[in-house]
């Protein structure tokens, strides 16, 4: 079963709809008591870094998630979900993220922010998740902050470019996968990626 984490700030339902479409068994996880039976987790996200980080803490999900990741169990962070893997974000200075990836989320320079639309992800050669997608490796992005990693040791990275900034839009470390784009809104390319993640990890 895939547990989709509900922390009140996510685009939970669109992720659930995509999993249902793929006929993947999934359920909603609201607190530490709901993890029974979950083999994989998805941390979705749309919203504000500060509000989301505080909500994870309030629901006592933060320490649970850190332990899950330390145990190298599969987890997928989407958009803000990926940014929550970091220590901090310029969106909410002073608020701590999960800190399982070392780095921060930074605000894009102009002219136009947020980035809204379809962009490409340049894959590292070690990323079987996206290999063979060819021309269809366009994904839907919707964000104002981008990932800046302090240390990339042991992390496989897919890169995107916006407003002159080249940034990691896909990161994979052990069984942790984070994507800055929305696979659940990226048409068949996104569904294929979700399906591969479900089967691979």
């Amino acid at each position, binding site marked *: 079963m895939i547990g989709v984490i509900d922390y009140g700030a996510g685009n939970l339902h669109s992720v659930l*709809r995509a999993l249902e479409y793929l006929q993947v068994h999934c359920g909603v996880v609201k607190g530490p008591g709901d993890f029974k039976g979950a083999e994989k987790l998805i941390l979705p996200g749309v919203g504000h870094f500060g509000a989301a980080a505080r909500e994870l803490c309030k629901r006592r999900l933060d320490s649970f998630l850190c332990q899950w990741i330390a145990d190298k169990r599969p987890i997928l962070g989407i958009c803000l979900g990926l940014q929550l893997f970091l220590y901090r974000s310029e969106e909410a200075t002073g608020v701590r993220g999960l800190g399982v990836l070392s780095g921060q989320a930074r605000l894009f320079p102009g002219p*136009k922010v*947020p980035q809204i639309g*379809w962009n490409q992800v340049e894959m590292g050669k070690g990323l079987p998740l996206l290999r063979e997608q060819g021309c269809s490796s366009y994904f*839907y*992005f*919707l964000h104002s902050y981008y990932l800046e990693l302090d240390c990339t040791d042991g992390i496989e990275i897919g890169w995107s470019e916006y407003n002159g900034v080249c940034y990691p839009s896909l990161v994979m470390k052990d069984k942790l996968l984070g994507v800055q784009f929305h696979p659940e*809104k990226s048409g*068949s390319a996104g569904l294929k990626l979700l399906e591969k993640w479900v089967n691979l990890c």
Partner: protein
Amino acid sequence: MLTIRVIPCLDMAGGRVVKGIKFKDLKDAGCPVEMARNYYQEGADEITFLDVRASAESREIMLQVVEKVARVIFVPLTVGGGLRSIEDMRRVLRSGADKVALSTSAVEDPELLKKGALVFGSQCLVLSIDAERKGNGWIVTSHGGRKKTDLDVISWAQQGERMGAGEILLNSLDRDGTRAGYDLELLREVGRNVNIPVIASGGAGTLEQIGEAVLRGGADAVLLASLLHYRQLTISQIKSYLRDKGVAVRC
């Protein structure tokens, strides 16, 4: 590289897709779920639904349509028309929309944009502006173009951005349904005065005009209705034309 988006727009009334000129003389253009699915399969980058009737009953039907569409279509959905409160927005988003478009309700109560941005985030708030030429500029109209306001389009767009809109859907009422081409001057003026994406709407008739909206008007996305509904052009024709002109599009 970020691509230019091609967005089919389904104007809806009572659960059917309709099309008229300048929001009048509505004709039936088809079933929304079927049409949305076809456009998705043809490569639509997003899909927009606008409820042109915007009555309470029409809104309920819209929710059911969105609910159905969101189960089979996995690109972003924008829904607008008759959304007057945070609760209206919440219901539409919960039924499967990714963004809400506000027009009349934002004119009547600009605070609604601010409140919406606080609750749902700017990324899901689209300010829809129906612009009409007046003198050397443009004024904002409301109620589907039926009512003129004294708001200037440029300053309204800037105010909208400040209040929390994440995108502007810019419709030229003078060009809507005429196929005479987008109002490029309007697009340029709004585009250079805001820092959020602008979606061009109203007036598309040929591939060349669509190309001009992007290359000369600076549009970040193009919204199309009757041209697609009546199969005068297809999404793939538009994308291959844009690609030939050096515009990045998703293939």
